[in-house]
């Protein structure tokens, strides 16, 4: 077969683009374009619906309703405490996973990342079995200290930590693995103990990743539903977080549900923007 030259038209901007970046035609074939457009519509339409149906006029009223405010406040502080707890115990675990070797390490890593793929409600059931008044650990907490965890704000924090901390751990562990260990060696030759190396060299160098992991963890904690409702229940002011409030308000006060959803959507957008350098830069994640 002979290839015939079939002239087409190249606009000036397209000419400039190809000259600058190189490469041939970038037109999209129809069998790819149509499914892609369906996917876009599927992802964007619901969000558009949310924005269109939002009671913009009485948004303030809907959000300042007693239940909504309570849920908002509870969600914000529990997610923040969860992030704090995750930083304090999750970063050291990430370091142990990245910088040491011991038998069973791969199993431990698998266990740590399990909550990422585990249905949150299963996590809630597991927490209940461990920490309820008759649970594995809970019975002793109750017996020795008179401490009952389920259906308290503490339970909310535990459920959120269970689900959200792995996001922080894998982010930080990845950063530790890809960090240049030459700096740590240099610090050691300068007389720094491993703890000093961690504090003065490792941690400052991976600070951006720790920050990103913390934001991710906070966002995941804020949106937590399944594990929380299973382990902590839904007592307004006590354990009813925003996602749970949205779920119940949908039946009783749809406007409040939509208003709360908008708040969560706004938070998500803010998180996305704050992590844009890591995630939205096409292809190459730093």
């Amino acid at each position: 077969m002979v290839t015939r030259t079939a002239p087409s038209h190249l606009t000036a901007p397209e000419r400039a683009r190809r000259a600058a970046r190189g490469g041939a035609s970038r037109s999209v074939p129809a069998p790819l374009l149509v499914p892609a457009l369906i996917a876009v519509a599927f992802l964007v339409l619901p969000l558009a619906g949310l924005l269109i149906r939002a009671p913009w006029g009485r948004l303030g009223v809907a959000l300042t309703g007693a239940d909504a405010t309570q849920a908002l406040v509870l969600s914000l502080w529990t997610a923040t405490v969860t992030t704090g707890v995750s930083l304090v115990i999750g970063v050291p675990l990430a370091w142990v996973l990245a910088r040491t070797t011991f038998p069973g390490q791969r199993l431990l890593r698998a266990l740590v990342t399990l909550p990422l793929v585990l249905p949150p409600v299963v996590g809630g059931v597991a927490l209940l079995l461990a920490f309820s008044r008759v649970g594995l650990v809970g019975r002793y907490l109750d017996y020795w200290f008179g401490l009952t965890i389920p259906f308290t704000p503490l339970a909310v924090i535990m459920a959120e930590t269970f689900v959200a901390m792995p996001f922080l751990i894998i982010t930080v562990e990845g950063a530790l693995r890809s960090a240049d260990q030459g700096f740590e060696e240099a610090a050691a030759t300068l007389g720094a103990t491993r703890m000093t190396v961690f504090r003065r060299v490792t941690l400052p160098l991976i600070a951006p990743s720790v920050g990103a992991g913390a934001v991710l963890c906070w966002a995941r904690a804020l949106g937590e539903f399944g594990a929380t409702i299973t382990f902590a229940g839904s007592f307004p002011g006590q354990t009813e977080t925003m996602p749970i409030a949205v779920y119940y308000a949908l039946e009783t006060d749809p406007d409040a549900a939509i208003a709360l959803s908008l708040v969560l959507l706004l938070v998500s957008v803010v998180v996305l923007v704050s992590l844009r350098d890591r995630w939205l830069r096409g292809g190459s994640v730093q």
Partner: protein
Amino acid sequence: MTPEASGGLAVDAEVTRGSFTLAVTLAAPPGQVVGVLGPNGAGKSTLLSAIAGLTPLSAGRITLAGQILDDAATGTFVEVSRRPVGFVFQNYRLFPHLTVAENVAFSPRARGLGRRAAKSAADHWIDRLGLASLADRKPDQLSGGQAQRVALARALAGQPALLLLDEPLSALDAGTRLDVQAELKRHLADFTGPCLLVTHDPLEALVLADQLIVLEAGHIVQHGTPAQIARQPATDYVAKLVGLNLYTGHADGPQVKLTAGGTFIIADHGLHGDVLVAIRPSAMVVSTQHPQPSSARNTWPAKVTGLTLLADRVRLDLQGQPPALVDVTPAAVAELSLSPGSQVWLTVKATDLEVYTRTSSQP
């Protein structure tokens, strides 16, 4: 007085990494710079990291001022952070999140000084290395030469008893290298302990080191003063480094029969047996016709196989018996219209041949 007792470094050690074994015996007296020269993969960096404690020995021991740092036989091992060692890494490894002043103060601080005492210790070295105007900069705002000085200041601020430098000038461009080299030589002269300097640049080694060790494939192939090594290289690698032609052969009075073919007439040293012959590339004369009889005793035909332009001269690669590298001026290349394939005659005076006995340890 043995070097160990007087503050010197003594290494008699083996490091095994997979199929590679580094086996080195060396002594570095205080105040001396020992250059470690060798090709990539010879084990130079492994040697430094063993001395610093980043790689444990598989056999043997390392002592500094009589104190054991690592002894594979007894299991004695001093951790990296507890060794009085200053290490200047190849790419400096300055902490990017700390300023110059904080980088230099890192070691005093890590070794237990308070914030203020560490700062004044650092200030001393910052002044000494002329870094005062850069103290508040971050490493990414430094030029190569400045970063090198900061790295040296940071290593010295910990008051090490031993200084290790891994290719200290290789990250610099050719323009600044000579200046920094001269400066480094001054600072090394001030250092009272032993100093090991790893490099693959022969000029750097010749300029900076008091004695030289040539490492090839994990073993020391030559040890001596820079002058000795430059004049009488023991292996092809060293000869190439210092830019000499090196031939192995068998001497019998005024004649040397070369292993690679051909015979040299030499100024008679009364040598008999296995010898090495070194010739400077500039000592040979190239002619396009058989030269007239002259006082030069060695003449042989050769074919040009390659031409390389060096800074101010052209290096000819010549095939013959024996083959040779010869330096000529670009003008000579033009006048004789030399190109690959040209037939030429090589001439060298017997007195320009450096002939010396091959010792058994040399391959």
